[in-house]
């Protein structure tokens, strides 16, 4: 297979470009999008690459149509992605819920910018953390990943596709305007160096009849994609194991939604990932995600130089959330600081995890500039 960019070597590229290349290497062959700052470069890269790898890249009339098209593509058998920023992400929420309800593997990238509304189109923010988790209506479960470097943008995009396919779920990749437009050295691996997952397909007629059942006991049903003669019916209405609408039976709804929660929560150990820096003997913990983690790492170094035993927990998966690891940490540190580029979102999750066992303090910053390491360090020193 020929790729439209160099593989097996490093390159100096933007976060957006890294997401696009990773998607192609992960097997994504359908992209639908709508122009928006700061995610347009993902679309532009996909537009350049997709026709060359026999994939599809299409500009839709809006973001609602973009996510709709990728869900359709996924049911036709393609790995599919769309990318946007806050305003477009808001428009996608209804169909994001549809993808959750119909257990459709898709990847949705949100390169966050300052909001609400049109806000600060070219400036980074982390104001969509809660929206990524809770934006669509009703009880739902999905996976949210959050990269902090261009290399992570690449790696997490591949991971996003693998998790989406493995658990038949939408995965949100939550970046920001800084990461989207920043250029860094990235290693683009050879395809044979990458582990790639494709969704479970039905092995026989029996399994194909249970597109929303649990024939393997892991909560993840095989996906009878269209055109294979399975005659699958897919609906956003509450449905039984066969896909038949059953909207007035409480137990059917309970069974379906519980399984959608279970298929992800039962595999939390595999889905959740984080990194720690100097955390083993830390008395002060900083917990961060995304772009702010870069400053937080430096802040830990500054604090250590000044004799403060600080450490960092850098979250890669922000949903499902690892409340346990926060509680364990809260038991052994004096205080937890949460620097984030919003008025306090991750902070609330951390506080719930800390469960009163340590003080949790928010270091909020909005306006479009990432915290400087000194800003974080000075708050810790007081």
């Amino acid at each position, binding site marked *: 297979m020929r790729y439209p960019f160099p593989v097996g070597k490093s390159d100096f590229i933007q976060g957006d470009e890294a997401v696009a290349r990773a998607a192609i290497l992960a097997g994504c062959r359908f992209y639908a999008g709508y122009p928006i700052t700061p995610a347009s470069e993902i679309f532009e890269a996909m537009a350049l690459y997709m026709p060359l790898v026999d994939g599809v890249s299409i500009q839709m009339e809006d973001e609602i149509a973009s996510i709709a098209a990728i869900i*359709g593509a996924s049911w036709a058998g393609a790995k599919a992605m769309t990318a946007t920023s806050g305003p477009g992400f808001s428009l996608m929420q209804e169909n994001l819920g549809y993808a959750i309800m119909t257990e459709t593997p898709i990847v949705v990238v949100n390169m966050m910018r300052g909001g609400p509304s049109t806000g600060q189109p070219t400036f980074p923010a982390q104001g969509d953390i809660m929206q990524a988790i809770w934006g669509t209506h009703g009880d739902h479960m999905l996976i949210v990943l959050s990269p902090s470097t261009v290399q992570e943008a690449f790696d997490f995009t591949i991971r996003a596709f693998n998790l989406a396919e493995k658990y038949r779920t939408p995965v949100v990749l939550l970046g920001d305007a800084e990461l989207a437009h920043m250029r860094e050295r990235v290693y683009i691996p050879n395809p044979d160096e990458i582990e790639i997952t494709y969704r479970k397909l039905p092995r026989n007629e029996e399994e194909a009849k249970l597109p929303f059942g649990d024939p393997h006991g892991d909560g993840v049903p095989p996906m009878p994609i269209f055109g294979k003669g399975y005659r699958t019916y897919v609906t956003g209405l509450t449905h039984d194991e066969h896909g038949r609408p059953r909207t007035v039976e409480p137990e059917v709804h309970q069974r379906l939604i519980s399984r959608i929660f279970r298929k992800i929560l039962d595999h939390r150990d595999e889905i959740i990932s984080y990194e720690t820096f100097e955390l083993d003997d830390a008395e002060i913990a900083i917990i961060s995600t995304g772009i702010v983690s870069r400053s937080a790492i430096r802040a830990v170094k500054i604090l250590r130089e000044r004799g403060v035993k600080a450490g960092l927990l850098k979250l890669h998966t922000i949903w499902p959330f690892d409340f346990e690891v926060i509680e364990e940490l809260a038991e052994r540190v004096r205080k937890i600081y949460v620097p984030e580029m919003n008025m306090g979102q991750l902070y609330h999750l951390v506080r719930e995890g800390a469960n009163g066992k340590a003080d949790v303090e928010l270091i909020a910053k909005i306006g479009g500039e990432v915290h400087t390491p000194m800003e974080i360090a000075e708050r810790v020193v007081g």
Partner: protein
Amino acid sequence: MMYLKSAYEIRDKYMRKDMLPTIFCPGCGIGSALQFTLRAIDDLGLNQDEIVWVSGIGCSSRVPGFVNFDGLHTTHGRALAFATGIKLTNPDLRIIAFMGDGDAAAIGGNHLIHAIRRNLDVTVILINNFTYGMTGGQVAPTTLKGLRGTTAPYGQFENPFDIAQLAVSAGANYVARWSVFNYLQGMNSIKKALQKEGFTLVEFLSPCPVSFGRRNRMKTSPELLRWYQKITVPLAKAKKMKPEELEGKIVIGEFVDRDRPGLVREYEAYKKRAKKMMGWEE
């Protein structure tokens, strides 16, 4: 003879037994349009496993759940956007979109005109009952002036959309409109539409006695069908009529039948061009 098969035979071949009975009210016209579509598929001998039915939300959007095909019952108004993804991913699949007038022309209006502009290869069966049936009879973008709905209880004060004309202007390859009373013409139009590349649309005026007729002094389906006979004018006759004579009338017939390249063919050519421009192919 063409239409020898009984309705039972068509039902047993194409409907999901475990999903019956349908949710449709007595006198509803959706069943008729569905039967025309299934008979058209049967007459053409199309492969059941190469057709995907898509829909949005509303009474007519429940149709894909009753037929034994692959089906995607999506969100309100968005069926054609989902269809775009299916068709471009697997061009061998033929797509039938069952849509209501509110679904297609109000919340999904933008998707409709853009799907037509792209000439997406899809056949739309559009059920126009002038109302939101499922939610209980609110006015729709098709409701004729003066007709009543629960959200314009004193009579609609807005102008209606002519969906078929909209489709013609936006560039569809085939557009026809009939009432479900026009059994043969309707079925033949669907057959034509299903054989064509690009965007094809067959609109049906379809009775909704329960949510619409009841509020407009037409409590039964026959009354609504008689009303259709009164307000519809065949295209050939309409061409000879003055605009003022056509006031309040709905023209029926075949509005366009042309062969512009569909989206799939255009994208295939685009891929070739891309590879050529990048020197990947001669």
